């Protein structure tokens, strides 16, 4: 690439850069249009809808209400559990799913912290093992791709069967746990299944980072008398940190929008009815009850994901673009 000829370079200064720009424009426009239609438009329209009233029959007066500007009422519905009727704003009647909001936030954050922590620790361990030379390494690397390749919906059904009261897990453990309907047991069921499914992805991303660390560094350290633990904390961890941070960021953003697994494994509720309800599940439950308050909730979910991503990049230095650019340049090779 560096051999791109001085000739070409001198030409670039002139008209070629403009030509590049024109080409690039045509090549990127289709992607831009598709993403604008299916991602840009819904996000913006969700924000607009979240400030509007639901149109429909008003239960108090029996008259058709056309909707209109609702201010922050839809957000108050979630944050403060307030319902707005023609009679005014008051606390929602019992059974309203707005009441589940804080529990859903709690569940979502709990799942995110637990699964990502477990997946990071196990993923680092798996990556270190796979980075070693041993017979059958190819076999292990193939095995690790199996959970990744199974669709989440199938994974959920598979673990639903394993977690059945009469299922294999209770048999092996000799326990009588009602995995998919106890409050805490259903949460742990989700965490176990998710860890099984996504740790391989983590391990592969971390392994890619590990392979960039030159063998010589370890040899030098072990000749200087560094122990295995010292080598891990002083060499492996700092050097693999950029790749690790990107992997963790991707997983966190993914865990915050978790839907398939709790929706199928515990029927969206589990336990007391809401103990595995995540924000995504709550949005889907709300869609059929009112677009606008569902939009407010999906906007809240989106802002939460955005906030977490921002904090990650800002304070933990997970620089996706730079790390990828570095890997592409083979800088650490």
């Amino acid at each position, binding site marked *: 690439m560096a051999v791109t000829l001085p000739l070409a370079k001198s030409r670039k200064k002139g008209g070629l850069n403009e030509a590049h720009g024109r080409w690039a424009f045509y090549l990127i426009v289709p992607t831009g249009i598709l993403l604008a239609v299916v991602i840009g438009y819904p996000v913006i329209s969700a924000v607009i809808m979240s400030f509007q009233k639901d149109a429909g029959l008003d239960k108090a007066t029996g008259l058709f209400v056309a909707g209109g500007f609702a201010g922050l009422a839809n957000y108050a519905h979630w944050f403060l559990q307030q319902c707005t009727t023609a009679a005014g704003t008051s606390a929602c009647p019992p059974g309203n799913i707005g009441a589940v909001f804080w529990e859903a936030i709690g569940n979502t954050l709990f799942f995110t912290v637990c699964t990502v922590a477990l997946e990071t620790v196990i993923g680092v361990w798996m990556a270190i093992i796979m980075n070693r030379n041993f017979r059958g390494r190819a076999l292990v690397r193939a095995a690790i791709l199996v959970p990744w390749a199974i669709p989440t919906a199938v994974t959920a059904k598979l673990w*639903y069967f394993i977690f059945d009261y009469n299922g294999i897990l209770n048999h092996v453990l000799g326990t009588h746990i009602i995995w998919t309907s106890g409050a805490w047991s259903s949460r742990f069921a989700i965490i176990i299944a998710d860890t099984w499914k996504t740790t391989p992805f983590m391990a592969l991303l971390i392994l890619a980072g590990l392979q960039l660390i030159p063998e010589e560094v370890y040899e030098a350290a072990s000749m200087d008398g560094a122990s295995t633990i010292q080598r891990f904390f002083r060499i492996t961890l700092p050097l693999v940190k950029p790749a690790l941070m990107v992997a963790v960021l991707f997983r966190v953003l993914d865990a915050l929008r978790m839907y398939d697994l709790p929706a199928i494994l515990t029927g969206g509720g589990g336990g007391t009815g809401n103990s595995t309800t995540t924000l995504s599940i709550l949005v889907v439950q709300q869609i059929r009850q009112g677009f606008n308050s569902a939009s407010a909730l999906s906007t809240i979910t989106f802002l939460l994901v955005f906030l977490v991503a921002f904090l990650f990049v800002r304070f933990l230095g997970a620089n996706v673009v730079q790390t990828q650019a570095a890997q592409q340049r083979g800088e650490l090779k």
Partner: protein
Amino acid sequence: MSVAVGRTRSSTREVARERDEVKVRVAKHRGPAIRTAISAIVIAVWCLLPFYWMIVTAFRDVGFTFSTDAWPSHVTFDNFTTAFSTSLGNHLGRALLNSLFIGAVVTVVGLLVGTSAAYALARLDFKGKSVIAGGILAASMFPGVALITPLFQLFTNIGWIGQYQALILPSISFVLPLTVYTLTSFFREMPWDLEEAARIDGCTRVQAFRRIILPLAAPAVFTTAILAFISSWNEYLISSQLSSDATQPVTVAIAGFQGSVPHQEPYTAIMAAGTIVTIPLVVLVLIFQRRIVAGLTAGGVKG
């Protein structure tokens, strides 16, 4: 200067000799190797055991659903018949065709559109490149639920609910960031001097791309196609809300499965369906293992 270099070289040689000695010592010490082997077995078993259990159950008689025999017992193919039984309300056959169709369209369109964007990002100099790259990456991080409410309303208004295009369009946009990112990083590593050479020999940019670069890029494009297809095949959230009985993909079909015994979760049939849905992917993944790992880590985006 040259003296310094010479000294470094000789010391490197010494280091190398010492390193060999260390290696011999390590080889004599078998402990770590055994620990590695045990860890490797634990990883493989942890990853494969639930998968194995799914296959064993798929071939087990429904009356022995909760049998705890570790090996295949009461072997039968009835579960596969149940899984495809339309009289029980299981439209697995149609769901498989739906998933194949949706996956194929999503993959082809996603690759056509994604390849051109990736080529621009990898190969051309233009203003705002990093902004566009960042924007495409950010698009992959939007939670699906942030899109589903407006899409649900929009598709209801234009009568798309339950139609294929309502499932295909969102899926393409989920797959696009993945294809663009994976292909961009693959494209950056390609021997572009050949393109320059072709153009000096009189090819246009498009000709050079089609005749020289595309054949060379075929493996990368193929890998990305597999990742895109798997991603589309696994999609559940949007499909579960926007599909009808006629258009539902396999993930939705399996989630709402009916068995031959009323009021009983049809585990064996579900496992049979799960096996059918999963085996092609697992075979694909095992055959193209190396490429897929390269693609996954290059894109760094979840498939």
